[in-house]
């Protein structure tokens, strides 16, 4: 069975009381009765003794009256039942061993009573005997007393006990009840309060003024609940802080914090939070007199933290991050609120005065790194509570840190959005190609203003055309779609004049129109024929009540943003950026045609260049062919001369032989025959020589696909060395140089395009001859211009070197030597393609290597290495 505290206490008390009552009821009367009986017995025994003594004396003196007198001692006692004088005789038992006592009643009072000398006490009678002994006789006095009195007394006692126990019981019950109530009430109150606290109601406090343990418990409980309340309040603020998703949510947290401060009773009047700017000695703050009003009741303002001892002290304490306490009173109080009025907070002085009936305020400020939390009270704070403000400040620090993080990330996000937006504007505007595309300007601007989060209701772009002295106006409809374009001459109206004026100065321009001004402008536009009717203008059919116009200049015109209020600084900056992005993009659009033209021109130039390049390459080929021609002519001329000469000589010889045959001069005939034989082989040799040169020339001039075939590089090297030499010789009569050739007899045939390798050799050899001849012109003393061509078998490779003993190639030239069109020859003498083509032929065409080994002042060696 569950018992309440009250029940338990009551039970306890009742048990005790019951025990006591029972004690009174039973034990006490029992004891009383016992004593009563004992006393009675004693009294009777004494009576018996006294009577026995009297009888003894009387009998000793043999005064029988004396016996009576002795008996008289009890005779009149009302309680007496009887008194007997009994003689006791000791007689021997018949067996003679024992003495037997024989009792004999001598005398009794009342006489009629029948006395049993051996009677013992019963409930109704108490029988006592007292012995006496005289020489005459021995006996005893037997007294029997009625217990009637005793029984009466007993009844009396029981009654009294019953009454007493009843009284005790009732009193005990009463006390028990009161006690139980007294104890259980605060306990129950504590229980109930604790239950409610458990249910989340932290407004509970237990009213118990007693100083007993329960009283102390109540105090402890109240403190605990209060602490819990503070913790919960802090937790709520913390939760609000953590729930902030956007930097705009900061006021929610602030409002929550101020409300909690109010709830826990710390801010008895009002409180505020300030973010301190130490450089400017200024604080941006939020405050409210009505903390229950939440975010809406919150007022935001700025206050200078200098010029008032309270604020000076606060700033100083903030710098040291120490709590600050100040009592505002008297003039300082008034000064402070005067200063406060300048903060821009609508929290009126009256309201503050109202809230504070006296001009005395206790100001407690707790610091956090970014600012301070101040509460204003009409009464000083309990010392033990002062740290709570700091805890709130600490929680707010948390909130403010989160706010800063949020703000930073928002700045980043916004910056990213801004960049993305600007990029889109750049992209979209720059991708515009035609006049028709331009009609998309306003929707784009509209879209990006929206995505930038700039508040606006109208937008547009004005492109200033200085040539036509007009403004191309692209304006939005109220729904964001394009209104199309209309042209506004510079001098159309004050508005256009103002716009051009500001644009020229590169200045932003702001104006404010009310409904009438808007309509007036529209009317003037209609009158001048710039717009057809009201509907075609920016929603003039339903004009805005109030319109703030902002014009942002950019290189080609003005960007227009219309809003119901003036734009904030941030938005102003954003639109500026947009205008700049727009400008760049628009410039790109404008340049597009030019660019397109330029591009076409470039492409044409490129085509021309390519064709020129082809021509140049051809020219290089032709040039080398030209160089060859003279050499070839000479090379052909020589064998042909031999052919002619040997054949002519042979004719003579035959004539001579005929003569000798006639003479029969056999010896001479034989000699002539030998000569003829030799001549014919010479003719054959030189004929072949000429034909091979012709073949080579044909190959050199042949175009089209050429096949790689096994070629003897020794032959090639020899042939081209000679061709080059004679070619140069033919071109420049003054040219002369020594040349020698070292051919490796073991050189294997390699798979090459002979003609290409020939060209390379020709080019290298020509260059070598050119170089040595240049040095020869400048140097006379003993310089022998020499060009050496050498072939050599390497492991898996063949090497052809063309070496000269000219001046060598300086490093700065060496770097560029394989670049196309690079030449050290005077203008017109070289195409600058020779080495470049040679390089390509060897490396790309044949997978070989073309190296240069040069030493300034000593000469140059070009080394061709080709895979076998």
């Amino acid at each position: 069975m569950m018992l309440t505290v009250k029940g338990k206490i009551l039970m306890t008390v009742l048990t005790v009381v019951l025990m006591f009552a029972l004690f009174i009821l039973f034990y006490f009367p029992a004891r009383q009765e016992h004593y009563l009986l004992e006393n009675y017995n004693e009294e009777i025994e004494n009576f018996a003794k006294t009577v026995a003594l009297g009888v003894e004396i009387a009998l000793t003196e043999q005064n029988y009256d004396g016996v009576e007198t002795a008996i008289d001692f009890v005779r009149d006692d009302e309680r007496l039942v009887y008194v007997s004088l009994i003689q006791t005789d000791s007689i021997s038992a018949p067996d003679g061993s024992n003495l037997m006592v024989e009792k004999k009643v001598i005398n009794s009072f009342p006489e009629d009573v029948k006395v049993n000398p051996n009677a013992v006490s019963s409930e109704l009678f108490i029988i006592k005997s007292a012995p006496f002994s005289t020489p005459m006789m021995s006996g005893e006095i037997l007294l029997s007393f009625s217990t009637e009195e005793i029984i009466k007394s007993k009844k009396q006692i029981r009654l009294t006990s019953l009454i007493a126990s009843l009284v005790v019981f009732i009193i005990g019950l009463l006390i028990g009840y009161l006690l139980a109530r007294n104890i259980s009430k605060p306990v129950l109150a504590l229980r109930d309060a604790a239950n409610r606290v458990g249910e989340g109601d932290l407004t509970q406090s237990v009213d118990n003024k007693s100083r007993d343990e329960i009283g102390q418990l109540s105090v402890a409980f109240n403190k605990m609940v209060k602490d819990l309340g503070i913790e919960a309040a802090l937790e709520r603020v913390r939760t609000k802080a953590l729930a902030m998703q956007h930097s705009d949510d900061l006021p929610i947290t602030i409002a929550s914090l101020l409300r909690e401060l109010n709830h826990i009773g710390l801010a008895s009047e009002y409180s505020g939070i300030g973010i301190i700017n130490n450089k400017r000695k200024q604080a941006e703050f939020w405050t409210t007199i009505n903390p229950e009003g939440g975010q809406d009741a919150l007022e935001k303002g700025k206050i200078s933290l200098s010029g008032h001892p309270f604020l000076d002290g606060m700033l100083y304490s903030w710098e040291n991050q120490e709590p600050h306490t100040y009592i505002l009173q008297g003039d300082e109080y008034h000064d402070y609120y005067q200063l406060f009025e300048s903060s821009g907070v609508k929290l009126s002085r009256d309201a503050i005065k109202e809230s504070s009936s006296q001009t005395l305020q206790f100001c407690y400020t707790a610091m956090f790194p970014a600012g301070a939390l101040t509460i204003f009270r009409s009464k000083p704070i309990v010392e033990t509570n002062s740290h709570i403000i700091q805890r709130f400040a600490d929680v707010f620090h948390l909130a403010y840190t989160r706010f800063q993080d949020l703000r930073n990330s928002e700045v980043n996000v916004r910056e990213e959005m801004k960049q993305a937006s600007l990029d889109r504007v750049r992209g979209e505007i720059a991708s515009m190609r035609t006049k028709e595309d331009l009609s998309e300007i306003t929707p784009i601007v509209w879209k990006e203003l929206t995505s930038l989060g700039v508040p606006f209701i109208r937008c547009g772009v004005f492109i200033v055309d200085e040539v036509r002295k007009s403004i191309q106006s692209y304006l939005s409809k109220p729904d964001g779609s394009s209104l199309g374009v209309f042209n506004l001459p510079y001098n159309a109206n004050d508005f256009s004049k103002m716009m051009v004026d500001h644009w020229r100065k590169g200045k932003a321009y702001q104006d404010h129109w009310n409904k009438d001004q808007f309509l007036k402008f529209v009317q003037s536009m209609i009158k001048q024929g710039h717009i057809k009717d009201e509907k075609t203008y920016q929603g003039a059919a339903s004009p805005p009540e109030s319109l703030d116009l902002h014009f942002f200049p950019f290189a080609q015109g003005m960007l227009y943003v219309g809003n119901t209020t003036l734009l904030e600084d941030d938005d102003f900056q954003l639109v500026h950026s947009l205008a700049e992005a727009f400008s760049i993009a628009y410039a790109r659009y404008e340049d597009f045609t030019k660019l397109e033209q330029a591009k076409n021109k470039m492409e044409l130039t490129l085509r021309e260049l390519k064709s020129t390049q082809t021509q140049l390459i051809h020219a290089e080929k032709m040039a080398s062919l030209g160089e060859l021609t003279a050499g070839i002519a000479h090379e052909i001329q020589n064998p042909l001369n031999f052919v002619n000469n040997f054949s002519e000589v042979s004719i003579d010889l035959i004539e001579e032989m005929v003569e000798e045959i006639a003479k029969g001069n056999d010896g001479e005939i034989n000699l002539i025959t030998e000569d003829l034989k030799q001549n014919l082989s010479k003719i054959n040799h030189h004929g072949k020589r000429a034909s091979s040169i012709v073949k080579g020339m044909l190959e050199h001039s042949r175009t089209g696909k050429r096949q790689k075939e096994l070629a003897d590089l020794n032959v090639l090297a020899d042939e081209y060395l000679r061709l080059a030499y004679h070619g140069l010789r033919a071109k420049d009569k003054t040219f002369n140089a020594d040349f020698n050739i070292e051919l490796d007899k073991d050189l294997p045939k390699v798979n090459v395009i002979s003609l290409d390798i020939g060209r390379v050799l020709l080019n290298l050899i020509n260059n070598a001859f050119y170089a040595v001849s240049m040095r020869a012109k400048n140097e006379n003393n003993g310089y022998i211009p020499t060009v050496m061509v050498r072939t050599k078998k390497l492991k898996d490779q063949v090497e052809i070197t063309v070496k000269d003993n000219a001046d060598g190639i300086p490093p700065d030239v060496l770097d560029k030597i394989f670049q196309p069109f690079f030449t050290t020859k005077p203008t017109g003498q070289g195409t600058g393609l020779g080495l470049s083509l040679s390089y390509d032929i060897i490396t790309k065409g044949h997978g070989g290597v073309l190296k240069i080994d040069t030493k300034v002042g000593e000469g140059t060696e070009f080394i061709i290495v080709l895979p076998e």
Partner: protein
Amino acid sequence: MKILVVDDEKDIQPLFEQRFRREIKKGEFKFVFAYSGEQALVYLEKYKSEAVLILSDINMPGMSGLELLENIKQKYHRPPPVVMMITAYGDDDNYKRAMALGADDFITKPVDFGVLKETIKSMYE
């Protein structure tokens, strides 16, 4: 009469030997051959004044005929050897330079050996 022929074409030797077969046979002419200007100078140094006529090609690798001519005309004054230049490139420039250097004749290839024979003969008659 000893004639030094200078030409880098070695076949010039059999050609001359056959062209002047009769003259050689008769002992009228005696030919020596040099295949470069340098060789010619070496020969001239060795057999001073043996050759009375020098026929030299102009276009030769190394020392050219004109250089040889210049050398000869500078070194050998007494008796001055007759130097005739033979060239495939019978252009003005070469001719003028040869003449300026003191060439006694200037023959253009292809050589007309009949004319050459007459020229040589007339020179020593």
